[in-house]
Structures are given as C-alpha cells and as structure tokens.
C-alpha cells in the first residue's frame, strides 16, 4: 500500500519531522525559517488533511502511528528529531513509545493524548462540541496575533469574506479528518499513559502558559510520565505556541536540539 502525503520541506541537514495539530503547517508559518537553520524541517499533512488523500479504511490513531513509523524509517540518516504539535503531539508520543530506531529526540508542544484527571474532570476542552468563540478564547493568549494564513483551534471564528473557497474546503476537510481520528474517547488513548515510560529518547515538553485547551498542569503531569523529560512553558502563548511565539518556540527547540547533538 502506497500512501501519498503532501509534505512541506524547509532547510537542509538532519531531519526534523513536524507532526501538525488541527491544521497542516502553513508555508507561511513564522517558526519554519528559524527552525530550518538547525536541520531540514519536514512537515507532512496527515492523511485526510491539506492535500493528502485519505486512504480507504484509514481512520484511527493506530493508522497514523504506524504510518509515521514508516515515515521515520524512510528518512535519511539516523538522527531524527520528532516534533508533535497539539493533536500531532499525541501521535508523536505514541510513535516514540514504539522506539523507532532512527528517533533521537522528541519535542511535544501542548500535546493531547492521555487522561490525567478524574472521570468528571475534563482534561481537554472539547474540540467539536465547544462554541468557536470559546475555543478561540481558550486556545490563544491573544487571537489578534495569529499569523495570517495560519489556523489553530477556533478557526471557525476566523471565517470572513476574505477567505477563499479553497481555504474553506481545506479547513472543512481537516476538521472532518480530525474528528474521524479522535471523536471518542475525545482526543486521548486510555492505554497510552502507562506506556509513556517506554519513551527512550531525550524529550522536551513545551507548553503555552495561557493554554486553556490543555492546561500547563496537564503538561507537567504529561512530562512527568516520560523518563527524563524536560518541561518548559512559553510566555504569552496558548495552545499554539509555534504560531503565537514562533521565535521563542524555535529558540527552545534549537537549544534542545543543540544540547542533544
């Protein structure tokens, strides 16, 4: 089975594989250029997102985890940094648990994917059942700082007459695919938490201080389950620190890559 993935590439050198969150990484995303100074940024669109086709019967996180193990196996060299953003952080954590041979570093930025609190605690604001205005409030420190052409949670509130039909079709397709993968249990795998201890590479867990989708406390608990992981927060950022504070985000990742090299 051959799976086509639309893939954004920037820079050269050791691979930095970026797994996106609710929407694919935009070519205009401001974190790309600073990050590309430290290796080749490779950012595929998940199947069903952007221009990546959705293979028949491809519909669970299990499919994505196996797919990205294949992707890592096919990357050049044996020094792969894996970065997962939000929903992509869940995938990245699952992939790291499987210990891919070429994986040497893991960065999780505001990942979802595990259950921390009690059965009546909502750890992860509901992506699909929440009002777009509520999502926007929770996901951004300052929504006005969203880079043009980049969409995170609450993207619905950004729809206006300046948006092209193609952008809307793409956002709708991304939203459908995200739902297919993650509706229930909403945005987590009940079996992931006990296996995070298997992650065997240096790990940096980054968190937007103002993230109201998954809070920094959730992030601290998440990082505490990964052996040796470092937890850091990014000031004046919400659920998408790579979009709200691209320089700080790239700087933290660069320092981590440098330290682990």
């Amino acid at each position, binding site marked *: 089975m051959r799976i086509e993935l639309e893939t954004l590439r920037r820079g050269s050198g050791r691979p930095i594989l970026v797994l996106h969150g609710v929407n694919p990484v935009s070519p205009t995303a401001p974190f790309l250029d600073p990050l590309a100074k430290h290796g080749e940024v490779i950012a595929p669109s998940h199947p069903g997102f952007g221009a990546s086709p959705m293979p028949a*019967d491809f*519909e669970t996180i299990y499919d994505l985890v196996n797919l990205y193990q294949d992707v890592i196996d096919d990357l050049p060299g044996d020094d792969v940094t894996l970065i997962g953003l939000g929903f992509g952080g869940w995938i990245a954590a699952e992939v790291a648990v499987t210990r891919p041979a070429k994986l040497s570093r893991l960065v999780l930025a505001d990942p979802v994917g595990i259950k921390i609190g009690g059965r009546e605690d909502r750890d992860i604001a509901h992506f*699909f*059942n*929440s*009002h*777009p205005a509520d999502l926007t409030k929770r996901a951004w420190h300052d929504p006005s700082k969203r880079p043009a052409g980049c969409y995170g949670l609450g993207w*619905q509130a950004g*729809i206006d*007459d300046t948006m092209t*039909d193609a952008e*809307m*079709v*793409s*956002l*709708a*397709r991304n*939203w*459908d695919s*995200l*739902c*297919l993968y993650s*509706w*229930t249990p909403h945005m987590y795998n009940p079996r992931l938490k006990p296996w995070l201890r298997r992650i065997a590479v240096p790990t940096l867990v980054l968190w937007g201080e103002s993230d109201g989708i998954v809070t920094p406390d959730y992030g601290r608990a998440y990082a505490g389950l990964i052996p040796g992981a470092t937890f850091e927060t990014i000031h004046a950022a919400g659920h998408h620190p790579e979009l709200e504070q691209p320089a700080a985000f790239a700087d933290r990742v660069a320092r981590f890559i440098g330290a682990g090299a």
Partner: protein
Amino acid sequence: MVSMELWNHCENPYPFVPAEVLDAADSVRASLPNKYCDPQTAARLYDEIWEEYRLCDDIGLHIVTNEHHSGINNLWAASPVITGIVASMTSKVRILTLGTLVTVRPDPVRVATEYATIDVISKGRLDIGFVKSGATEMVSGNANPMHIREREWEAIDLIEKSLTTHDGPFSWEGKFFTHPHVNVWPRPYQSPRPDFWAATSDLPTCAELGRRGFVNTLLFGGYERTRKAYDAYKQARVVAGLPKAGEDRFSYMAFCYVGDTDEEAMRIGQKIPWFLTVSIKSSPQFSKFQPGAVAPEMAPAAWRGGASKRPTDLSVASLIAQGQMFCGNPDTVAKQIKEFRQRVGGVGRIIMMTRQGLVTHAQAMKSFNLAAKEVLPQLQDLPAIDDSSIAVAAE
C-alpha cells in the same frame, strides 16, 4: 385504484421554556439544561398524547413515533420505550417508529431485540423506520458524526439479519459493529419482518431504498425535491429490473391542520411552524461546523453569511404554496393532498405533523377527528397516476 393512508406524527414538543431563556441560549437542543423541563408538565403532555393516540386507534389514523434528545423539540427520547407503550395501548392501527437513531446506538442487535418485542406486543402492527440523524443528536448520543451514512447502512443490515434469522446464533464482524452471538428472542410477529421505512431526500440513498423496497419518506421536501427523490427510487427499480413500486412505498410528512373552516385552520395552523422558528435553534458547532455536516466542497456555500436551506417565509399560506403544509377545512385539505400526490407522481402515505409547537391538545383532537372522518374518505379509491415517463427516462 389507490387508497391513501393518514398517519399522525407528534414529537411531543415542550414549548414551555421562557422565551428569554431560549433567546439567551446558543442552542435549544443538546445543551439547554434540563432544569427548564418540569416533569409534572411533561407527565401531563404524555397523558394528553396517549389520549390522542387512543383516538387515532379508534378513528383509523396510523401513528408515528420518533426520537430526539436533550431539547425542547421532542420528549420522545427513547423511541422503543414510547413505541412499546403505544403498541400496548392501541389494537388496530399501524405504528411506525421513525425511529430510534441507529447511528447513535452502539449495538444494533439490541435495537432489533427491542423492535421484535414491540412487534410481538402489537401483534404485527409495527413498521420500522430509519433516519440518518446528525447535528445535536451526535453530541447528545456521543456518536462520531463522521461516516454515519455508512454506519447506518451496516446497522440496518445487522438489524434485518437479526430479525430474519431463525436458526441462529450467527456472527457479525463488520466495519462498525461486531457481535459474535446474535440470537434475538422473541422473533418478530410479522414474517419475514416488519416493513422498513427510511427518511431521506438524498438521491443515491433514495435509489438504494428503491432497490431494497423500503418505504421512502420525505420530511417537508416540497413539490420539487419530493418528486426528484421518488423518481430516483423508481428509476433505480427500473434499472435493477424490479417490479414497479406501489404508492404505499412513498410517504410524505407535512405540517397539517384541519379545521371547520379555512380561516380557523389557518389561524391555528400558524402555531405549528414554531418547530422551525424556535425549536431548531442550534449552535454553530452543532450544525454548520459539525464534522461531516456538509461535504468539504460544499463548505463555502454553507459557511458564508446568510446561507440557509430553511424556508424564510413561514406563513401558513407560504408553507401551503410550497407543499410543506396541508391546512384548511376538510375539503381544502383533501384537495391539497390530492394535488400534492399528482405533482410528485404518487404518494400513498401522508404523515401529518399536527400537535406541534403551541397547538393545544383540544385543537389537535379536533383536527384528527376531521382528518379521519372528513378528509380520509376523500382519499380512497383514487385513480392511478401515469408515471410511465420514469420507465422511459431509465431506459
């Protein structure tokens, strides 16, 4: 000659939440707290509608139940429960469940068991209807809104096999449902099974209903959409080499009020569109932004300002003109229904939504009596409709 049937569809709405609460709420379904539902008022509503159903059983109006959840539009939250009660309190008319929402039910075998039980209790008066559902129902039912049409068909197939297999247990390992040991007791009263209906105007789905011989019902489709849906059904049968479907395979639900005079009916009928004006208010995340709600290529049309399929003019006169309401004195209503039948190429089963919105119990009882005694006789022994153009089109 064709004789039409009249069916009574009541959703048991709850129009008693203060307007200021409804105005302030993002959604009157799914997320409106149930502190606004007074159980004593709800109990009175159930009693009133049981009385309406007993009347229907006496005067020959068949009964439709359905279900919606967590909102002011519908207190039939569990269709099999309601349908079982109706089966027990009636003895003559047919009962259609339209239906329990199989896309939010995790085990279709349990649904088949509930329906088989009701069929036995009713001594074979049950018809089983399927609706795809969506929107707030996916939220209230915690069901993934993606791939629901595919999931619905697998649920229907499993329910059908559960109702028609009598030398089980059998095993089912499908894409959406697995059950290694299916063996439904009691078996249904009717053989091979209760008649199946489905509510849809989606043309490929209508064609599939045609191939399967289900009753195709449309809800408020108006003249044009209904005609196209029925034509798709008929053409699919021609292409498949199946015999022509009778008019009993086609059904249509419309708002309906029958009064002594046109003036009285129009006045009371104006209370019915509350269903559209108030009871379907829904937050954007439960409607246009719900995953799967619109195909991605249709998103721009659905999301840009002002896009709505809902009728904008909800006056009784406008709804009548669009074929979405039958309203007037008995002769007027009979004439409207006969004209609708002609224009859509034949329909045998009219479902009347009468006890809706702010229509009172007494007003509903009056309309049902007039419908059964003065409209229904005018819908018997009607000349067949020439729809031979369908066969030509399919060739």
